[in-house]
């Protein structure tokens, strides 16, 4: 029997998979035979929708991570081809080379001309190897910075798409200063004189994601994740066993819902029923509408005020009273000996003279 399904199912979607198969078999029968099965198909489809709704509204953190890594999930290139008019890709960091894992593109979203910076994972194996599986090298970050400076010069807003497991850990990357490249990006993006919107579309892994993710707005797709370390890495360190990633994913609070409730991201962009991979066009439409709306909002603000607001927003992380506290016990510590006054020679002479005068008066 031929398999009509092209969707790839995740481990927790067994029921949905069997239902889908049943429906497709019925559909095939409906076509080939003279019996009308459409009523039955309709009830089954309703059942399937309900099941999808149920599954996807109660995803565990680890299941969310699995959805965000789904092989059919829309990548940056999909957004690019469906959303951006007249794209012109810019290559090279003018220092070392061109990194295909980060793409910088001048284009138009809606009516707004923008610079788009996006991390590309690659769809097939050949592309994936070329892009290091979405792990950028330092030249990628430097390229992004150079093009963002260009956008600043010509007043173009910047939209960044984050989708990376992390910056590439390799010998070459360290030789060319991965840490320094990311650090410079963080500093420069915090004061870039143009609006910046960042969207996590899939995986948001640690410094690699943050390297192009500092700006006025940070939003996430519903089933994307954003974390300080990959769940596997965290499990390896704290549980001494990479297989405990499920527990680590839960502890790290990396889903969009939890990050929103902690106030660490601005917006959660809705995904179609059953995740972005079930309907790429709907996902892209939602993201496009979000970008157009937010850009309109940010363009109204004067740039100085925008920068001040951005700085305050960045500094507000871990600043609030719900996160940080002063210890009471340490308040009553004995005072440290005061630093002796440092006076110039002239001042010292004057002081001693004053003291002598006082003594004489006594």
């Amino acid at each position, binding site marked *: 029997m031929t398999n009509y399904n092209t969707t790839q199912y995740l481990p927790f979607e067994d029921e949905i998979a069997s239902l889908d198969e049943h429906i497709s078999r019925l559909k095939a029968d409906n076509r080939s035979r003279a019996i009308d099965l459409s009523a039955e198909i309709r009830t089954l489809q309703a059942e399937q929708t309900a099941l999808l709704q149920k599954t996807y509204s109660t995803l565990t953190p680890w299941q969310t991570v699995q959805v965000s890594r789904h092989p059919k999930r829309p990548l940056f290139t999909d957004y690019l081809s469906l959303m951006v008019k007249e794209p012109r890709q810019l290559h090279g960091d003018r220092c070392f080379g061109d990194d295909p894992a980060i793409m910088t593109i001048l284009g138009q979203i809606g009516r707004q001309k923008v610079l788009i910076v996006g991390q590309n994972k690659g769809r097939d194996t050949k592309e994936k190897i070329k892009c290091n599986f979405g792990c950028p090298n330092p030249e990628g970050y430097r390229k992004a910075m150079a093009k963002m400076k260009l956008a600043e010069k010509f007043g173009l807003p910047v939209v960044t798409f984050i989708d990376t497991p992390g910056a590439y850990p390799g010998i070459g990357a360290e030789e060319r200063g991965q840490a320094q490249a990311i650090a410079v990006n*963080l500093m*420069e993006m915090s004061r870039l004189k143009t609006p910046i919107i960042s969207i996590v579309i899939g995986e948001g892994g640690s410094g690699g994601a943050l390297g192009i993710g500092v700006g006025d707005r940070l939003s996430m797709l519903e089933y994307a994740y954003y974390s300080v370390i990959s769940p596997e890495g965290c499990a390896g360190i704290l549980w001494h066993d990479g297989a405990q990633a499920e527990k680590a994913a839960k502890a790290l609070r990396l889903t969009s819902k939890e990050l929103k409730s902690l106030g660490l991201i601005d917006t959660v962009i809705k995904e179609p029923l059953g995740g972005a991979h079930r309907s790429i066009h709907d996902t892209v439409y939602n993201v496009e509408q979000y970008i157009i709306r937010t850009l309109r909002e940010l363009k109204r603000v004067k740039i100085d005020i925008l920068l001040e607001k951005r700085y305050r927003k960045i500094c507000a992380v*871990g600043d609030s009273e719900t*996160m940080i506290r002063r210890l009471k016990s340490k308040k009553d510590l004995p005072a*440290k000996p005061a630093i002796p006054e440092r006076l110039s020679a002239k001042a010292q002479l004057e002081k001693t003279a004053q003291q002598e005068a006082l003594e004489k008066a006594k």
Partner: protein
Amino acid sequence: MRTIKVSKPINNKNKKNTVVKMPAKNKTSWDGYSIKPRKEMPDGLWLACPACQHMLYRKIVDKNLNVCPECDAHFRIDGPTRVKQLVDVGSFEEILADLTSLDPLQFEARGVKYKDRIKVDDDAKGCEAMLTGKAFIRGRGVMLAVMNFGFLGGSMGMVVGEKFCKAVDQAIEESLPLIVVSCSGGARMHEGVVSLGQMAKTSAAIGKLDEAGGLFISILSDPTTGGVSASFAMLGDIIIAEPNALIGFAGPRTIKQTIKIELPEGFQRAEFLLEHGFVDMITHRKDLRKEIGRLIDYCGK
């Protein structure tokens, strides 16, 4: 248990045929005929240099600024010791010593709560992963921030970020040079994305300092990796590294796991970074005070 008879002692006539129990030989550690391996010394007076295996008297090491007198290996030191070594005697005035994290994530791993974890570390070491304060170095007033490796691997959480930003603010306000000694494994994963946010926060603060024209000297000690090296540590106007310090973005173990080849000798060490142009100078710990003083004279206001 084997027993052996000891013949009658000559001097002591009262004791007769004492039976001495001999402890069983531990065959796993010693085969019986080769030179016996050196046992690890008890904590306290003596310590073995991890680089050259020399036995060193602790007081001499302390006097030598925790540098091995035999091979010049720079040992890791905790925050308070570093402050003591760096500043003029009695001039360190700590700020914000009483901050603590409230654990917004309620992080728990293997039954150990992060909240309890920081409590234990706090009691033992008496300070968070960073100490900030005003001090004098060779008579020059500075704003000093020193990372404390003893507290959860010196990892950067929200307390570190907050202390750092306040230190930068004060440095801008009083136009003091900012000296930061980094010694950290990276961002603190117990605080999740909040600690990731600290990378952006500290970098943005350095951006402000840069705009205000302040001097920022970043000192990298062993180890400076992960989120700390990818934020403020690499943004220094002048970057000084200690000899043979491990400095990099990803740890050597992570790189080895990812690319599955042996890493070259001296990879990610201070000398490697100097060669590739990411640090300005490598300075011996005993010259650190002198160098900082001189650099402030050249670049400070």
